[in-house]
């Protein structure tokens, strides 16, 4: 029988909530595919992102949930909070299960076995999945350009297993696999993988972008751009985790802004048509990294030189974005101009023994 043309929907881009001096969020779609009644922690950053993503995507969506907090914490007790189809898959199968769903719908619609518009296929993979064990499968899905959106909700650690280091955990980030101690005063010596850039550089035909829960409308628009892009799209989204970062729960959105304002999480988009980066996003202010670090217990052990190292790293990110560095931030990269975190002395003094 003759092949049927696959119909795909196009989602409108939302207006900017900052209209001159007035702050007013644009009208949002009414449907809530992500419903309350799940066991994520109060203030959970990935949950905030998940809800925004599914709202941006709408009811014609299929969600894929590799093992992680957005699997375990969201389900538990044999029930889930998704009013759209959702499937669990293995932590390493993020890209591949998603590819299977997308491919199945291509074939079924084309062959007349499914009558309807091509669904939005979204994979929600934690950074443990996206950056480590599932890296190959995601790269494969992007390379093969399946019509899907793969999201790495980046809480910079393996959270669900009780907070362990992943290749996205920042330098100096304490986790149970990277605790501070006299031998390792900075706790984590390795800098994180530049995951999103790897995806953009390696698969230039895909729409790739970074986002943060600190900028909700921007996040939802990037989700929609990714879904509208015919082919594979990838988003790496900063989603703070209260349990691992150790901060006051009301601050989840605030941290999402601060991490961008201090340069540690540059916000950019890769344009697959023009084959270039769009670095035009500018946060409202530029802050030294210490303002971000001091709000989180996971950095409480840092010494001045470690903070200076992080400032240096942030300065490099600003440079990549084409932002002129103010004097204050250049100075802040010198350990002489930093002070130890409050808990640094205690962290050093305690010899950790099991």
């Amino acid at each position, binding site marked *: 029988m003759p092949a049927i043309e696959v119909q795909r929907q196009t989602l409108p881009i939302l207006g900017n909530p900052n209209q001159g001096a007035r702050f007013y969020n644009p009208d949002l779609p009414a449907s809530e595919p992500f419903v309350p009644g799940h066991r994520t922690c109060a203030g959970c950053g990935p949950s905030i992102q998940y809800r925004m993503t599914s709202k941006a995507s709408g009811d014609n969506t299929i969600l894929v949930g590799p093992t992680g907090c957005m699997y375990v914490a969201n*389900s538990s007790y044999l029930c889930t909070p998704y009013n759209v189809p959702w499937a669990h*898959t293995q932590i390493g199968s993020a890209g591949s299960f998603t590819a299977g*769903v997308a491919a199945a719908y291509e074939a079924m619609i084309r062959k007349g*076995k499914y009558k309807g518009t091509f669904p939005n296929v979204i994979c929600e993979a934690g950074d443990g999945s996206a950056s480590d064990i599932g890296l190959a499968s995601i790269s*494969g899905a992007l390379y093969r350009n399946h019509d899907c959106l793969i999201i790495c909700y980046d809480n910079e650690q393996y959270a669900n297993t009780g907070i362990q280091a992943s290749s996205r955990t920042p330098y100096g980030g304490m986790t149970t696999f990277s605790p501070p101690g006299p031998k390792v005063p900075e706790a984590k010596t390795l800098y994180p993988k530049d995951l999103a850039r790897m995806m953009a550089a390696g698969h230039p035909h895909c729409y790739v972008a970074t986002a943060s829960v600190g900028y909700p409308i921007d996040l939802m628009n990037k989700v929609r751009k990714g879904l509208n892009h015919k082919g594979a799209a990838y988003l790496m989204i900063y989603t703070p985790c209260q349990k691992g970062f150790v901060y006051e729960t009301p601050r989840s959105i605030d941290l999402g802004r601060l991490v961008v304002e201090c340069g540690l999480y540059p916000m950019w988009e890769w344009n697959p048509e023009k084959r270039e980066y769009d670095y035009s996003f500018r946060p409202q202010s530029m802050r030294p990294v210490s303002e971000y670090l001091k709000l989180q217990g996971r950095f409480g052990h840092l010494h001045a030189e470690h903070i200076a190292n992080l400032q240096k790293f942030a300065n490099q990110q600003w440079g990549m974005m084409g932002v002129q560095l103010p004097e204050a931030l250049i100075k802040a990269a010198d350990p002489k101009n930093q002070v130890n975190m409050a808990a640094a002395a205690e962290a050093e003094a305690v010899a950790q023994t099991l």
Partner: protein
Amino acid sequence: MATATETIKKRTVRINGCVAAAQAAKYADVDVITAYPIRPYTATMMALAQMVANGELDAEYIVADSEHSQLSIAHGASSSGARVFTGSSGVGVQFAYELYSPISGSRMPVQMMIADRTLDPPGDFGSEHTDALSTRDMGWIMGWSCDAQEAFDNHLMGYRIGEDPRVLLPQMVCQDGFFVSHITTDVELPDPGQVKEFLPPYKHPYPLDPRRPVSHGPQIMPEQGPPLQLERARAMEGCMPVIEEIHEEFARIFGRRYDAWLEEYKTDDAEIVFFLQGGHAVTLRFAINHMREKGLKVGMVRLRTIRPYPTERVRETLSKFKVVGVIETNMGLGSVSSGGSLYAEVAAALYESPKRPQIVSFMAGMGGEAIVLKEFYWMAEKMMEAQKHGKIEKRTHWVGFEE
């Protein structure tokens, strides 16, 4: 894109087991194919690639990034309601191991073509059954074909069985690497109308469909574990009558009748029988013919379906004989028989029988070597000695390495 099968009528072609499997996938009008190269099964995927490129088959042909991804893609596609075909060999089968339990437990009828291959170390392209057998507890329907025709037929029956609403289980349709996969024999390809009558479209009761949203596989607490496990066990046992029913159906439509569980060859008056799976049965039939000419009452029982294991049939059938020689073309290191895995399966089936044969295990055809006629004769000798002395020399013999 139009498939060309409609214009082709029933015909006989000379193809190997790999291509036979590919043809079966084409006749089954699969929707998604996931491929990853590893010898010797790769030829199946090569044949399918050409079919898709020619427009003979309309399917999404996906070159996955690993076997783990292959099976994950298959899982995702099957969960969405697509008929899926995949396959692997050797260590590739094991690379995908993580997915076997999830696929069978989520009741997705994925079909996997396995042209078996010895496991590393080191690399050895030759056939052993260990690769697929090592996954036998994972809940897939599993069995070996002994030739290309049976492979083609088993693939078609596999979809029909696996997708049956009373079953909904994945299938590993296995064949010996090289001996079946790469030796060409005559295969009758059916009329597409016959396939249409035999194999209805795949329809999972709860696919991932935005119009009827469901969640597949939410996390549970241990309290919810037991009923789910019991349901899986019921599914495995409950599919047995369906398997038999469908073999009947196949015989009616295609004119080739297979016993669902066992092929018996010259067992009516046999006293000693060989018990094995797969392609070495072809040589064994010749060996038996020769031995019979010499007056030996020898026969063969070939196991066609190892999962679900036909415990009662094995018990009923084998208890009639005096000695059963289990030919193991697999490694079960540290097993009950210190040899392969089949011995224990046979011995346990016979345990409750008041009349039990002696059971001896033969490590033969290891590493992909052919089992030559001489070796069958040697094995028969050993069995006769056991019959004579009333006891076995030892549980496992390494054929070719002993006096």
